[in-house]
Structure formats: C-alpha cells, structure tokens
C-alpha cells in the first residue's frame, strides 16, 4: 500500500478557477447520478447505505475518510486511489477498429511529447504517407483510445461522472468515485482529460500540429454523429481480414539476434529511473516483517504487479528465511512438474525414501508428516505460481492442498494478467491468499530467458550439447545410423520440397553400410531415437513413413563436424 500512497503525496496540485454556476450545475448532476446508481444497487440486494452528498466538504478529510459511501464505490475507492484512475472500465473493453498506420503516428507523437517542439513530418514513418482521406475519417471513432490528442470539447459538462472526478481531483483523489460505475470507457477517458490543467498551457507547438493533422475535411463532415460503442464493436468484427503492412524483419541488417548477444547488449544498457526504482524496492522491503508475521499466522502471500519479483523474493529469502527450511520453486522453468516439487519436498525436506504411486498419495504423505510434526515450519517460495507448467487445474489443486497445511507457508508471485482465473472459490479458500502489489519495473530477465521468443535466433547450443550426450551413450552402429540420416538431411538442405528419408531407402542405405542386418533392428533403433526426440517420423502422401531430424541444419552440421573430430 505504501507504494501507492506515495504517489499521491508526491503529486503537485493544480488549481483552476471554476465558476459558481458551473459548480452548482455539477452538484445537481452529481446527485442525480448517484441516486440512479444507488437504486440499482438496492434492487439487487436489499441493503441500504448512508450517503453524504457534499463533495465540497473536505475539512474532515483525514487519511482514510472518503465521502462516497455506496457499497460498490467503497470497493472502488481503493482501486481509484491506488491506480491513479484506471479501473475495470478501461481495462475490459471490446475490440475496436484499428488502422495499420496508427502505431507509427503515435510513435511520432510520442517522439515529440513535452519539450521537443518539432514540426510534424512523415519522413521517419513511411506508412504514414499512405494516409488517405477515408482512413483519416475512419480514424475518428477510435480517437478516444488516445486521449492525448482528443479535443472533444463538445462533451464538457454532460456526464456527472466526469465532474465528480474533477471536483475530487483537488482532494488528491482519495475520495473520488468508483470506476465500477456503469459509465462507458469513453466518458472515463474524457474525464481523464478534464483533470485540471494549468491555465497557461505551455505546449502549443507540440499539440497544434498533431491536432492539425486530423482536421481533414472528411473528418469534419463525419464529426456530428458519434458512432456508438455497439457500432464500433461490429465494425471491428466485421471482417477477419488483417490490415497490416507486409514488411518483415528480413529488412533489418540483423534480422535476429541470438540469446547471447541479446544478453550482452542488454547488460550494457543502464536502467533509467534507478533512484525511483530503488525507492519502490525499499518500500517493498519494508513489508518483509509483515509478510513473515502473516505467513506464520496462517495466511499465504501472493505478489502481483508489473516487473520481475524474483529479486525481491530472493532478497526476502536471504534476509528472512535463512534460518528455516525453505524450498524455492521456479514456476517459469519450462520443465518443472508438480511431481518434481512434491519429490523435492518428500525426498529432500522430509527425507523419505521410496516411491509413491501417484501425486495424491504423495500429497497425503506430506500432509500426514507435517501434521505429526507441528514444529517443522516449511516455507515454499514459488516464483510465478502461474508459470506455463503449473497452470493446470490438477497442479493448482495440489498446490492449494499444500498451501492449506498449517505449518507450510507459501509465498508466491504471479505475472500473467489472467493468472487469478486459475483459482476458483475452493482453491482460493485453500490458498488463503493475502494480495500484495509489488510493482518493481524490473526486467523479466530470468523468466523470459527460457522463452523461445520469436525474435531471438535459436542458437541451438542446448540442443547440440544434448545431442552429443545422447550420442555418446549409443553403440557405434547406432551412431552410424544417425549419422547417415544426418548427412542425407544436410545434402538436401537446399531442397525446399525435401520431406525426409523414407524408411525403405534408409533401410537400404543402412544395409549397404553394414549397419543393420534386418529391418527389425533398424526399427528398434529408430524407436530409441524417437524416444530421445532425435528424429521425427511423418507419413507422406503416399503412405510411406519419412524420417527427419527436427534440428536446425546449422546445429546439425556443427554436430557432424564435432563427431568427425573425435
């Protein structure tokens, strides 16, 4: 919470003059708005709440006091003061129409935000040149998506919602209203714009050209009827055609970087805002004691927020947990399984020899053993409990059962935006989570290093080493068989229609090389290869089996060279 408190205090207030009439009008508006919302609530559940209706009354403004008391709003307040104005309304919207050149436009606009008043030109962003009048006119409906340049003054003082925001803005927003109110995102965003600006706006140069761009004749004619949300929705879904440019990364000098160079390059970059990041981190670290306390009392803790929480948790581990038994689990690790987690608990922590027939049995054993020994405090630290391999329902069920053990304490982090969806009511009650927002802005270095990013060239270093390892354990004949296939594949590397070596051909070649004496021996050998994922078989159009090695040609030739040396 402290991280969110801080922003508020740091914010500089801007005051602007608001006429009496305007205020009066807004108050009337506001009350009506609230009434409606409240009645709606009452029909749902018959409850009733008191409500003050003077937003101006800010004298009793203590830290936690807020004026709005509607139930929904009570829930919404914290979201509001926590997150500077983004609530459910903007997060969950429908798909809207997007044009291909929007990104470049935004980029050039961002490029000239505060301070850099440069003339607008399309030189640096080629797609912009194709801007046609029709596109420009179509752009209008989506304009609310980028409020930075929105100039929709015709909307002023129609929605009570916006005004509530405006009125509450001077109060540091701590008492502003909820974002769960049923207004649509459009209003919401305009409200954002309405947040008081300093009267002498010192950026005419930066804004004017951008605005000027949109003053195309086509737009003016279209301006009057604003398309509704519904229309936009259907327009966005009307065609499945993808409107993007056809350019590919091949145009770059270095289309793909490999993992190593990537790391090297990134190591060199300095992170901006290090002072602020340090400040953020310090605030999180202040919570360590609280976490330990809450863990011991029986809650489990889950951390969320943007940025890698790995270093934070690691720091927590080294500063708090060194005195007790703990298990660190990297949920982002691509081949982690629930089995390995349970095994490390039973084998290494509980020092139990022997096997279990299934995870459920193992689970029962853990529950029983921990129950028998209440002095044994076990801490489980899971980086990314929402990791690729832990997402499954069964896995989460078992983790939930683990978390429900009184002397097992779980602290975990989540990053995926849909992570909470993997927990239903039942699992939630097992996990007994306390949520902590720890936004760190740290790059996800470790977490994404396993991911086969589409932009990163696969160096194949891993594949090569595993290949040599497997090869070393094979008989010379088997090695020869594999070599034969590899060589054949390399010979055909420039042939785009190469589908693989058919089994019959392969058998023939192997016999000629005195590697096998019957097709059964070859088949056994191939099965072994397949088990190690060294080859793949494919049925061709003619029903014949074709064999290929699913490894890149570069890696394969490296491998053959290495083999030759030995």
């Amino acid at each position, binding site marked *: 919470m402290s991280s*969110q408190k801080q*922003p508020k205090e*740091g914010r500089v207030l801007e005051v602007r003059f608001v006429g009496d009439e305007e205020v009066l009008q807004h108050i009337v508006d506001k009350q009506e708005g609230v009434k409606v919302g409240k009645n709606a609530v009452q029909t749902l559940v018959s*409850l*009733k*709440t*008191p409500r*003050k209706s003077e937003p101006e009354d800010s004298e009793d403004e203590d830290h*936690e006091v*807020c004026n709005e008391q509607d139930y929904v709003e*009570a*829930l919404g307040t914290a*979201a509001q003061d*926590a997150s*500077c104005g*983004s609530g*459910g309304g903007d*997060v969950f*919207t*429908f*798909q809207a129409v997007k044009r291909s050149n929007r990104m470049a436009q*935004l*980029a050039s606009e*961002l*490029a000239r935000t505060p301070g*850099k008043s440069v003339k607008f030109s399309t030189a*640096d962003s080629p797609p912009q040149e194709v801007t046609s009048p029709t596109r420009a006119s179509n752009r209008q409906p989506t304009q609310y*998506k980028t409020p*930075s340049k929105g100039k929709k003054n015709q909307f002023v003082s129609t929605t009570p919602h916006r005004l509530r925001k405006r009125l509450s803005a001077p109060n540091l927003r701590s008492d502003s209203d909820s974002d769960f109110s049923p207004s649509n995102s459009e209003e919401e965003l305009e409200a*954002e*714009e309405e947040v008081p600006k300093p009267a002498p706006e010192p950026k005419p140069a930066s804004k004017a050209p951008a605005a000027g761009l949109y003053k195309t004749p086509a737009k003016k004619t279209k301006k009057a009827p604003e398309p509704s949300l519904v229309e936009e929705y259907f327009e966005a879904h009307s065609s499945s055609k993808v409107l*993007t440019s056809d350019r590919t*990364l091949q145009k770059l000098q270095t289309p793909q*970087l490999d993992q190593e160079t990537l790391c090297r*390059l*990134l190591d060199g*970059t300095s992170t901006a805002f290090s002072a*602020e990041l340090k400040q953020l981190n310090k605030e999180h670290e202040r919570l360590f004691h*609280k976490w330990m*306390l809450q863990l*011991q*009392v029986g809650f489990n803790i889950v951390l*969320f927020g943007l940025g890698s929480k790995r270093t934070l948790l690691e720091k927590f581990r080294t500063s708090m947990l060194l005195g007790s038994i703990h*298990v*660190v689990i990297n949920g982002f*690790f691509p081949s982690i399984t629930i089995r390995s987690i349970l095994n*490390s608990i039973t084998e290494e922590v509980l020092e139990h020899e022997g096997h*279990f*027939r299934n995870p459920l*049995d193992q689970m029962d054993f853990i529950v029983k053993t921990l129950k028998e020994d209440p002095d044994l405090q076990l801490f489980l630290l899971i980086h990314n409990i929402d990791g690729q391999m832990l997402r499954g329902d069964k896995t989460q069920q078992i983790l939930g059962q683990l978390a429900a053990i009184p002397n097992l304490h779980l602290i975990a982090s*989540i990053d995926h*935006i*849909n992570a909470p969806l993997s927990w239903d009511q039942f699992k*939630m009650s*097992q996990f007994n989570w306390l*949520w902590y927002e720890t936004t760190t*802005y740290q*790059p996800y270095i470790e977490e994404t290093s396993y*991911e086969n*990013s589409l932009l990163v060239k696969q160096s194949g270093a891993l594949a090569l080493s595993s290949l040599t390892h497997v090869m070393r354990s094979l008989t010379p004949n088997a090695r020869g068989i594999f070599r034969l296939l590899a060589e054949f594949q390399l010979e055909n590397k420039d042939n785009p229609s190469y589908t693989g070596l058919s089994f019959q051909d392969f058998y023939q070649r192997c016999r000629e090389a005195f590697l096998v004496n019957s097709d059964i021996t070859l088949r056994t050998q191939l099965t072994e290869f397949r088990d190690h994922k060294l080859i793949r078989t494919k049925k061709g159009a003619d029903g014949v089996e074709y064999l290929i090695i699913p490894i890149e040609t570069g890696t394969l030739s490296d491998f053959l060279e290495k083999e030759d040396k030995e």
Partner: protein
Amino acid sequence: MTTSSVSKGCFVFKPSSKKKKTTSLKASDYFHDGKADSQNSESRFETCQSLWQRMKAETERVQEDLNTNILDSLLEFARKSTASFQSKTDDWASRMRASEIPTAALVLGVNVPDHAMTFQSLSALLQESVTPYVVCLQSKECSALKQVLQKVLVQLMGHSVSVEDDEEDQPGPRPTGIPSRKMLCSMATLCGWYTAVTQKSASPSPGKKRLSSSKGCGQRPPVVVIFKDLESFTPRVLQEFIVISSQYIQQLPLIFIFGIATSPITIHGMLPHSVSSLLCIQLFQSLSCTQHLATVIDKLVLTTTFPFKLSGKVLQVLISIFLYHDFSVRNFIKGLQLSLLDHFYSQPLSVLCCDKQEARSRAKELSHEDCENIRQLPSFMRYVEKQEPEIQVQLLTSDQRVKDVTQSLLKELHAYHKNYYPVLRCLHALTSSLPKYPLGKQIRELHGICLEKNVWETEEYESAFQLLRMLAKDELVAALRTCTEILKCAKKLGDAVEKLEEFIERFELLDRCSAVVETGQEGEEELPPQKGLQKKTDLFQLQKSLLERESRRTKKLSKFELLRLAVLDCIDSIVKKHLLPPESQPLHEVFYYSSAGTLRRHLNAAPRTAIQTALNNPYCYLQSEALKSEGGAISNAAPDICIVYKLHLECGRLINLYDWLEAYATVVAAAEGKDPDSAAAAQLDDVKHARFIRAVSELEFLGFIKPTKQKTDHVARLTWGGC
C-alpha cells in the same frame, strides 16, 4: 547457492541444525516494526493471539449452533430410514419404499468452501451415533464409475481394517492401498463384505469398539454415502451408481446424502425420472449464508465481549466483499482476522485494546513513548483542546497525568460500548419492521450508519421517525416492550427502561378511557361538514373548508397521539445520548481498526488493473518529473515496456513486428535527444533492437500478445482496451 539453473526448478535449503537454533524466530519477533520496543510488541502479539483464539472459538461455536438443527434432523432421518430397513413389516407401502434408496438432499448455499465444516461434523456425528460406515465422495475424485466404487470400497473396507487391526501398527498408505489394488471393485464385493462384517458383529464379537459404535442401530447399520458437491459430479456416473446401488438395496442398506449448492431442482436436472424414482428424497435446507453472516456479526461485532472493533469503512468493505463477491462467511472471518492482526501490528496503542481490568493495569504502566503516542492521537488532541488551559498544559507535559486520564477515558469508552449496543438493538427493533426499511433491514446496516455519523442527523432517521409517529398503538406497544427487554440487559440504562415502562403503562391506561374520548371527539367533528354540504358550495369554498378541517385535525391531537410523540421524543433522546459515533469518543483509535484501504487491497486485489496502470501511467509508481504527462499519453522517457505497450494499443488483431520495432525506435531516439526528423533517428542500432526484443517478450510473458503463424513476423494481440 543460487536459485537459477537450466536443469532444475526446485531448490531446497536446509539450515544446519546449529544455525537453526540461533536464528529461528517466533511470529512475535516479527511484530515490532524494526523498532526496539519489544516489550510492548510482545504483549501486543499475545493479546492479539488470545483475542483471535477467543473469536475463533466463538465463530466455531456459532457455526455449531447454527448447524445443530439441520444436523439433528439429518441424524433423525438416518435413524428412521435404518429403522425402516430393519422393520420387516409386510404392508404394501413399506415394501414399495424398501426398493427405494433413502436420500437426503441437503441444500447448503453457493459457497462451497464453507461447506467443508458442515460435512465434517455431519460425518463425525453419523459415525458416532448411527453407523460406522460413512463415505464422503468429492466430485474431483470421481470422474468415472470405477473410481466412485473404488473410493467407496476403500473408505469402507479400509475403515474396517483400521478398526479391527488396531493393534497391528500399519504404515500410512497400506490399508487404503490394498483393497483397491487386489480386489475387484464392484458392488457385489461390497455387498459380500458387508454381510460378512454384519454377521461377524452379530455373533458375539471380541471387538468392544464395534459393539459400542453400532449400538444405536442394531445389527445392520446402514452405509451412508455423502456426495459433497452434487452439481460437479458427472450425471452419467451418478446415474449409473444409483441404478447399480438400487439393485443391492435389499442386502445393503444404503443412505445417500446429496450436498447441493444451488437448488433442489438440480437433482431432476441431473437424473432422469427413471433414476430419480429409485430414490426417496427428503429435502433439508440449511440456513442461508446471509443469516449465517448476520449471526456472526451479531456475535463477533455487535458485542462488548471483544474489545476489538471495526470502523464503519472496514465493516463496509468486508460486507461488500461478502455480498458482491463470494457469499463466504469464511472469507468474512478471514477479513476479520486480518484486520485484527493489522490493527495490533500497526497501532502501538493497541496494547490497551483488551478487557477493562487488564486495560487499566496496562494503562498504569505505559511508557513515555506510549504517552507521546497517546498525545498524538487526533481524538485525544480534540479532547485536550476542550479542557481548561492549565489542564491542557498538564496533559501535554506530565506522563502521569496522561496515564490517569487514559484510565478514565478507557473506562468511559467501555461504558459507552456497554450502552451503545443495547440502544442500537433497541432502535433496530423499532425500525426494522417499518415499510421500506429506512434504517435498514439488517442491524449491520444501522450499525454502519451509526459508526459513520450522528444517526439522528440523517434523512433516513428522519423518515423512520415520521413513520414511527404514524404507528398504531398495538404495534408501538409491542415494539416498546421488546425495547425494554433489550435495554434491561444493560445495567446502566435502568432509568431509560423505567421511563419506557412508564410509557407502556400509560398506553394501557389510555385503553380504558380512550373509547369515551374518541367518540366524543368524532361527534364534534361530524357536525360542520354536514352543515357545509347542505349549502351549495363552489369549488373554492369546498377547498377552503377541506383545508380548515385539515388544519383543525392537525391541531387537535388525541391523547394517544400526544403520548406517542412523547415516547418517541424519549427514544430520540436516548438515541442522541448513546448512539454517538465512536469517532467522537477520545481514544477510540485504540479499539477501532479503520484502515479499510489496506484490507481491501489485500483481500480483494485487482492484479490486472495494477499491471495495466503501471504500463499506462508509470508516473503512478515512479515519481520522476520526466514521466509526468497529462491525459492518457505517456512520456517518451518511460520504461521500454510501457512504450511498447502503448504502441501495441494502436494495433488491431495482428501486429507487424517490423512496424512495431520501427515505431519504437522512433520514440526512443526522440527520448535520447536526437532530432526525430533526422535520418539518424530512424537508424536502428543493436541495443535498441535488443531492448525492443526484451520488451516484447515481456509483454508475451504477461499475456498481452502471443506469437502467431498467420503471417510472417506478426504477433497476435490478446487483450482489448486498457488505454
């Protein structure tokens, strides 16, 4: 030892045994916030723990009390059906019923996690008094008929094994493991086993335990199968199991208990008529969760038993999480626990938050720091300001004086609470039956209002009293009677009780003489309108005379009406005296936990909103002037991932990576101070490329985009909105 590796995902750390002893800390050691004041924090932690234990015990007791009714009736049901199994009466009806499986449909409410305790106590009770053979089935373990049968067999036979072979100490998984592996799991096996067991127990058996346990139900104790969550079972599996079971009902006295979360209709939705006709279903309805909550609030919140109190906001947050999110009493109690813990953790003066005697003795031993803390409490400051100047000086300088005052103030606070709750209940009793419930249907709503402000200043209170002023005598007297009953519990409110009783007496006195008076009055009033009607009147005159009558009527109040006004004034004065909001009381911070925001953030978080805010508006988290921007725009100096995210918002379903990269490079070049128009800006260097790659893969990791094969070098966008 590091925790990153390319071959391993789990790392176990065990401290050496020597180290363990020295460094292991108790929970209480984490209580002080890094400050040295350990004495205080320890006693705070102890108070907190003991208070929590008491509250927990209370909730469990409440739960048990609530469940007794339904559990009793379920037990009765089980016994009755057992009896019907055993009585071999030969009439047609019982023979008809004999082929049906007695089934109890237990409607428990939508919050499944809350049911666990109910089932636990149910099966314990059944085992204790009806039958040793109880099986609990959960849908997640029973995806096929085979598993259902296996589960039933394992639980029953494993049970009997562990009962009979108590002497043989068997290691964990064996008794449960054996029957399922070796035996063929079928109903016939079960049946055979059952006959064997019952015959064995019928003959004089050495097992004492056996005898005592099956005492209640003769030689053939029924087999109870509990389906914990009926809705999640596969209908086919359930149907087959029921059909098979009904074949064996003659040999095997089965009883089913269905745990239903929604409504009994689901049974018919899941089972066709041919199957449901095999069951003899009786419906049991448990208390609704809102009633459950009301009881919990009544016992834990609206009471002086526990010194810890929730402020209006906190209560509101907890109740709205309950009403709008989960209907889970368990979560409500969890919230209560969290607020208790947080209160004791964050408020150093919470050391005084204990029972009256204890608080007084603790107040005597306050340290200088504590006194300083007290002086800084807003409520105490307000209190000081009201005092005479010389007392003010004393309060600000002398610790002893502060301690004395604290003791007396604590005493007043306890007294305040003692009066507050009875008066609250009394007011609720008066207003809860009014039309439209101006002050709320539930007492918690009224409590919420009273915690926030002076209740008598609200519109709702006004309208409630207007309605009360129109109440008929019978209702009013009845309500007053309940009020006096409630108020009698509080010792300090004796005079109020006396007053009310006096009023009741006067009302009763009225009864006798009122008849005479009222007829007289009516007679008087009858006359003038008749006169008026005889004349020819125009509209104006009619209006005038009606107005006159109206005003006369309001002027002349009957005795009853006068008395009614008087009694309501009396109640009003009681309310005004005792239902002051706690914030008006000095030292209320000691007892009241008010940090609703914290509670909400930890119980009802919005992870996605947090991530998207961080991406959209980094200034919220990083207070750097460079990031400051108005509206929805972000500065080009923002972290890479924010810029990349912002750019991706402008795209449709698919995103061209090349365009994206180019746009990103433009922005970053500008941020680095290059002229965006020059050719150098468009130039892409490797570092920027690498940074872009990292940002994109981070977005992929967060779930905003995913790779796609629809078009070369494109990614698919996964979210909408978020601008």
